């Protein structure tokens, strides 16, 4: 018996070798390789063409990274305002969406009765599929007037408000604050969809074991579920952050589209992606390459975020495999 199983195993390996043997590659293998190489070429020229078109702008890297004004069409082109705007809006959005979203996914998994759970999960995934322009539209036509009428006067009643949010009389509705709110609403479904999946992937055995030891629901969450799902949740956070930093049209509609190099949240501002979108139409010559250079910056930010999130998700898989 054992000899026949080992024979099967060795035959299996042989078959696998035949399957990928380099000597017997037919037209089909070559087709697959050719198409894959085409995909690689497209991806490389994607990165390459943006970098090549941005080269003229890197003559003044200092201006591009820390310069405070954007004088079209001749320059100098300073990217400081856009970099601030990108980080400010996406970090605020991440903190809001992360806290609220984690609570939401925990309550979907632990509070909502089983029969509604699937419906809510489907609904969350559908909401995550809504194009970002729709979120931007809602922020622009509904939230911005509301901010102007209700939120800003309310905030400005507090004594510290003018230092943090900007002085009264400077608001036009669209602002970095509004962009942060719209971004957090926009990334919430994405974050909830991923974090819910991560949380429900925690093996039910260890959850039931801790219930049987008399742990309350919160103790199970705090001491068992969250530590097990920790890395995956960080991965979800980085994905959400990557989505927020790369968001273009929603921010272009609600941030105000002004290259203001300041930190006040109620002033209009812009982000890297939104600035590219709003300026590209009229840009000429060096301004195009300055915008391309901002694109390279955005690419660097995004690629490093997605590298981090991918390695975290892979580590989470290993953790779950061990449990």
């Amino acid at each position, binding site marked *: 018996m054992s000899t026949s199983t080992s024979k099967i195993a060795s035959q299996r390996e042989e078959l696998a070798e035949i399957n990928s043997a380099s000597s017997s590659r037919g037209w089909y293998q070559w087709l697959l390789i050719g198409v894959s190489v085409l*995909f690689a070429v497209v991806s490389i020229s994607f990165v390459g063409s943006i970098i090549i078109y941005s080269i003229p702008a890197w003559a003044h890297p200092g201006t591009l990274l820390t310069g405070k004004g954007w004088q079209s069409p001749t320059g100098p082109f300073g990217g400081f305002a856009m970099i601030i705007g990108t980080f400010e809006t996406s970090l605020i959005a991440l903190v809001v969406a992360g806290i*609220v979203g984690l609570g939401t996914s925990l309550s979907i998994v632990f509070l909502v009765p089983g029969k509604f759970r699937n419906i809510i999960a489907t609904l969350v995934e559908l909401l995550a599929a809504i194009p970002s322009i729709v979120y931007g539209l809602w922020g622009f036509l509904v939230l911005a007037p509301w901010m102007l009428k209700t939120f800003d006067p309310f905030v400005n009643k507090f004594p510290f408000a003018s230092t943090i949010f900007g002085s009264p009389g400077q608001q036009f509705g669209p602002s970095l604050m509004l962009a942060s709110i719209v971004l957090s609403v926009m990334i919430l479904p994405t974050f909830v969809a991923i974090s819910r999946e991560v949380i429900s992937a925690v093996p039910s055995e260890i959850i039931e074991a801790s219930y049987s030891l008399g742990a309350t629901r919160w*103790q199970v*969450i705090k001491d068992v579920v969250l530590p097990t799902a920790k890395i995956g949740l960080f991965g979800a956070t980085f994905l959400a952050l990557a989505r927020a930093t790369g968001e273009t049209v929603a921010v272009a*509609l609600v941030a105000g589209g002004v290259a203001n190099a300041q930190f006040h949240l109620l002033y209009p501002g812009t982000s890297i992606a939104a600035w590219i979108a709003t300026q590209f139409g009229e840009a000429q010559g060096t301004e195009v390459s300055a915008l391309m250079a901002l694109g390279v910056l955005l690419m660097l930010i995004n690629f490093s975020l997605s590298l981090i999130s991918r390695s975290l998700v892979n580590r989470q898989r290993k953790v779950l495999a061990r449990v």
Partner: protein
Amino acid sequence: MTMIDELVPQPENTGTRDAIRRTAHAHRARRVAISRVMMILCGIALVLTSIPLVLLLIQLIVRGSSQLNATFFTKLPQSPSLVDPNAIGGVLNSIIGTLALTIYASIMAIPVGVLTGVYLAESRSKLAATLRVIAQTMAGAPSILMGLFGFTLIVKYLQIGFTAIAGSFALAVLMLPVIAISTEISVRNVPDTLREAGLALGAKPHKVSLKVVIPSALSGIVTGCLLAVARAIGETAPVLLTIGGGYLNEWRPLNPVSALPLSIYMNAKSEWPSQRAQVWGIALVLVAFVFVLSLTARIWASRKQKRNS
């Protein structure tokens, strides 16, 4: 007060036993109370998430559906004037433009994406490993960068100009990695026994791949393609930099076209209230497209799961 001393059984002393029980009860009550509070906070988070999203959906449906009529679907847009500020026409050109862009992008992206995915799943070479990292990184790249790529390569370098083909190329670059990754996953999920059975019957590897593996992975591949199309159809940033826009009824690859997301972006900033109102209708149509595609994809995937189990 040390717990251990108290927990040593002292049957003579009933007072101590009661004290232990009371402490235990108090601890339990505290834990339960904390748990209640935290779960209520989680519930509040659920409500906080729902409020803006439900509001958005309601406003989209209510404001959007009031815009949908025959003119909306069958007429071209026109610029309103002071004489007739409500004469804004329909969005036929954007609907046609979006359909054309999506079809061209699918024609470009689906064959390449699916074959790349099959290669990623079936090969153990270094090329495949590298391609996988590239695909995963590209899948998360901001869509504005696809727009920049379409602009630099098609509009500028190849001198084709702002055309439907430039826009659909940008969208195809966006769809490619998504399709490749989902195809790889569904091909990987085909059980090895099926492959081995095919090979054992003497079929050539490419026959096994084409006639056994791909057909059994087909529903997963279709689902992935539908989701990629659903994503591409709503993307604004790539088309903003590439398709040119305009009010003409145009679908040909080498002409400038319009698209639904683009006209949302343009009309939202319009100074005419009638155009700003019309935007909700366009958004509703766009979201309907996306929902139909995503729901079809989900139903397809769940049907496949049922058949497998």
